[in-house]
């Protein structure tokens, strides 16, 4: 229908996808998509969760094979049966979900399957190591090539993914949300890298739900909706509202700062909290943090990667051991209580890494939703309590509609959902426990603007009912537009607090210890 996508081949088109359709069982992920990648240009894909972006990228990278349609490289028809074939054609990809071997070093991860061999076909570790060091310099990260990936923060792991893709010297480089765990300064570096790649004629395909960021880097914008390519436009004539409009089909609510109102009494109070670093190098990941969150207040915890926000919220949830300090929940100390007890008392965490800590992949959407609040769905029968099918089904249905999960039904496998929808399920799970204090670590990571809107309006709605929210974010725009108070952490300490209505991006970033970053503030619709 949108023929402009399949315009006659131009010289600078390297890769073209023609009439691609993809079925997963009964769900159609792609409905006849025509898509072009141009030499030396950055093509950015926009689209809600589940729009089909990753699916198309997987097809371009030979990970998935299309149900219909074909690919053309330099005008010639090609068949991609495996990732290796794609790499041989000069196509490489950074996957949306991390794909690393935690048991191996950074260097090993970067060269797995593409070993540089020396004499007698033995691996040339020195050579590889040099390459990695160069890559890390290029990405301005000081990660030692021989550190185990398991010891890296999720952000650093994403850097490794990027380095791996760069190591292949691809002509076409696909980046599916490469920055979801990166903070502004690293994004800045990445963009520099992308710039000189494109100058060398490399074609980039870029996907991100950080819209300003994406718009800034784009040469062409392509918008997906429900498996169809609904618009292509040159970067020159697009802006945030255009993108959002095309993606969602309506102007998405994007500013949640609500009228001044006085909050309830203190729901969560933290005093001189110290948490020891997981790596066991005797560092304090959280160093003497004191903080109060009141009922109905939404506090945003902003900071750079490694600021210790994850450790903080995990310690509050009962995951990490608290070294010292006190945590009071509605006046009573939660010291020494288990995660389970804390959830019962009304404090729960939506974790940073949904695949590892959020979802039970072997279970259905419904079962994931109800997992934390099973006990409220039981009826006592004879000796013990059993799950009431009706009650559970009811709660699940509410949960699904509350957080607007896009799914075939409560019985559907959780793995069949797109990243964003999976995240909504994790949040829904916690909300079903009826928390007094809700902790969220990067809750909008990998979530589209529409869903972001839904999630935040959800949080604000709950807040008005008295829920206290403390959430971690690395996205400055989000911090400003979706919080009552911004707490900036750096190197494990709370360094400053801001009122989002008065504070400016620059102030906040500076406080977080970020070097003056060059993302020229494309105003959010509100500005």
């Amino acid at each position: 229908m949108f023929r402009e996508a399949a315009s006659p081949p131009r010289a600078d088109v390297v890769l073209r996808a023609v009439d691609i359709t993809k079925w997963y069982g009964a769900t159609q992920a792609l409905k006849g998509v025509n898509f072009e990648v141009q030499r030396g240009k950055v093509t950015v894909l926009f689209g809600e969760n589940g729009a089909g972006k990753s699916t198309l990228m997987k097809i371009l990278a030979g990970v998935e094979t299309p149900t219909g349609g074909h690919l053309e490289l330099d005008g010639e028809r090609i068949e991609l049966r495996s990732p290796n074939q794609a790499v041989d054609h000069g196509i490489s990809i950074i996957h949306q979900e991390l794909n690393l071997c935690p048991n191996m070093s950074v260097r090993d991860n970067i060269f797995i399957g593409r070993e540089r061999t020396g004499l007698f076909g033995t691996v040339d570790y020195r050579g590889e190591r040099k390459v990695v060091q160069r890559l890390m310099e290029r990405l301005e990260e000081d990660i030692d090539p021989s550190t185990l990936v398991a010891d890296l923060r999720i952000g650093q792991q994403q850097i490794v993914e990027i380095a791996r893709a760069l190591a292949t010297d691809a002509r076409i480089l696909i980046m599916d949300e490469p920055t979801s765990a990166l903070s502004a300064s690293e994004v800045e570096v990445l963009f520099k890298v992308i710039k000189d790649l494109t100058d060398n004629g490399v074609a980039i395909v870029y996907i991100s739900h950080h819209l300003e960021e994406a718009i800034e880097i784009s040469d062409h914008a392509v918008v997906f909706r429900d498996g169809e390519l609904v618009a292509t436009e040159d970067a020159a004539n697009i802006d945030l509202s255009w993108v959002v409009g095309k993606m969602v089909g309506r102007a998405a609510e994007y500013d949640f700062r609500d009228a001044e109102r006085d909050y309830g009494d203190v729901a969560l109070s933290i005093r001189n909290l110290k948490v020891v670093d997981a790596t066991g190098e005797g560092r304090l990941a959280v160093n003497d943090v004191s903080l109060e969150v009141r009922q109905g207040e939404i506090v945003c915890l902003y900071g750079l990667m490694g600021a210790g926000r994850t450790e903080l919220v995990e310690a509050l949830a009962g995951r990490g051991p608290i070294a010292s300090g006190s945590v009071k929940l509605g006046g009573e100390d939660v010291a020494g209580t288990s995660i389970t007890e804390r959830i019962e008392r009304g404090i729960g965490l939506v974790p940073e890494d949904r695949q590892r800590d959020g979802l039970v992949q072997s279970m259905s959407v419904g079962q994931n939703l109800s997992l934390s609040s099973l006990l409220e769905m039981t009826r006592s029968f004879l000796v013990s309590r059993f799950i009431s099918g009706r009650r559970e089904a009811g709660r699940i249905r509410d949960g699904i509609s509350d957080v607007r999960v896009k799914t075939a039904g409560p019985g559907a496998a959780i793995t069949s959902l797109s990243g964003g929808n999976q995240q909504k399920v994790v949040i829904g799970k916690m909300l079903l426990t009826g928390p007094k204090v809700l902790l969220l670590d990067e809750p909008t990571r990998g979530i589209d603007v529409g869903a972001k809107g839904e999630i935040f309006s959800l949080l604000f709605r709950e807040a008005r009912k008295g829920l206290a929210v403390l959430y971690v974010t690395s996205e400055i725009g989000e911090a400003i537009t979706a919080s009552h108070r911004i707490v900036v952490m750096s190197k494990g300490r709370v360094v400053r607090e801001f009122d989002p209505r008065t504070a400016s991006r620059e102030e906040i970033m500076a406080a977080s210890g970020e070097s003056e970053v060059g993302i020229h503030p494309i105003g959010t619709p509100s500005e």
Partner: protein
Amino acid sequence: MSELSQAAVKATAPHALRKINTRALMVEGRALLALLLIVVVFSLLSPNFLSADNLIIMTRHVAMNAILAIGMLLVILNGGIDLSVGSIVGLSGVIAGMLLEGLEIKSLDLFVYPAVWVVIVVSLGVGTLAGWVNGVVVTRLKVAPFIATLGMLYVARGIALLITNGTPFSKLRGEEGLGNTGFLTFLKGAPLGLPMPVWAMILFAAVFAVVLSKSPFGRWLYATGGNERAAELSGVPVKKVKTRIYVLSGLCAAAVGLLLTADLSSATPAAGEFFELNAIAAVVIGGAALSGGRGTIRGTLIGAFVIGFLVDGLVLVGVSQFWQQIIKGAVIIIAVALDQLQQTLQKRRSAKAAFSPPKPSERVPAPV
């Protein structure tokens, strides 16, 4: 597909129901298929195979393995494994034997003859205790289940041998005078023509089927098996669940120990050697994933029947001892391999189906 989701299904849209039942069938279908095949083949080869008596006898043989397999299923659902069940069978049996023959208390030099119910409770207790130790070693000392239970395999067997000093206890009748009779008569009885082990199997199966599909504990078990970290953050008492399943597995083993002892009218320390292998095989043939999170009681029972009927059938038709082993091995592999085959076929079919326009029920709701 788990019992769970079946429970969940009852509450979900009908199309989801259909979808999931086919899944359930996919997993257990092959086991059923194997079972049917075995029954057909052997009843053709031997007229006696399907005789009522023989069916009851074979079912009694199946029962013991089935009970072990049920306990094993719990452990495997959690992603663990329990190699010690065989030894626990031996140990609890020996304990029962020792108590029935009378306990000598040196210091007071008198003999104590506990009542039968005491004997049963105590030996069940011992098995449970051994299971608990497994659980603690796994959860607290963080030892891999395979190793923890491998250790227990040696320890429990060693203790059984120490107690008996190698020679079995055989005076299990008890004496009227001492009021400890009835152990054999009770456990060897056959109410309504079904031998005790069969009743025990039915009981265990029924109870645990309900526990797995209806109780929070069951759901937690599937969750920990699926993704332990996530389950923990969701407030599932992971450690408690883990410990409990080993305790339950120990209990099942102890029960089998008692039944076996009664069956042999003698408690030998060697009883139950290598039972664990058959139990594990039954669970996996029944469609459980050793990685955890997937498996059902029903499937496990079918698996147990597949193995039991196969072994007895081979003897019945007079296959040579050596071939029996080869065939058993082959069947175990094939029964599980069928799974893979089926799933590939399944995929193909659904892929084809996909080309027909999606039914309304399946169209994804438009974004709000």
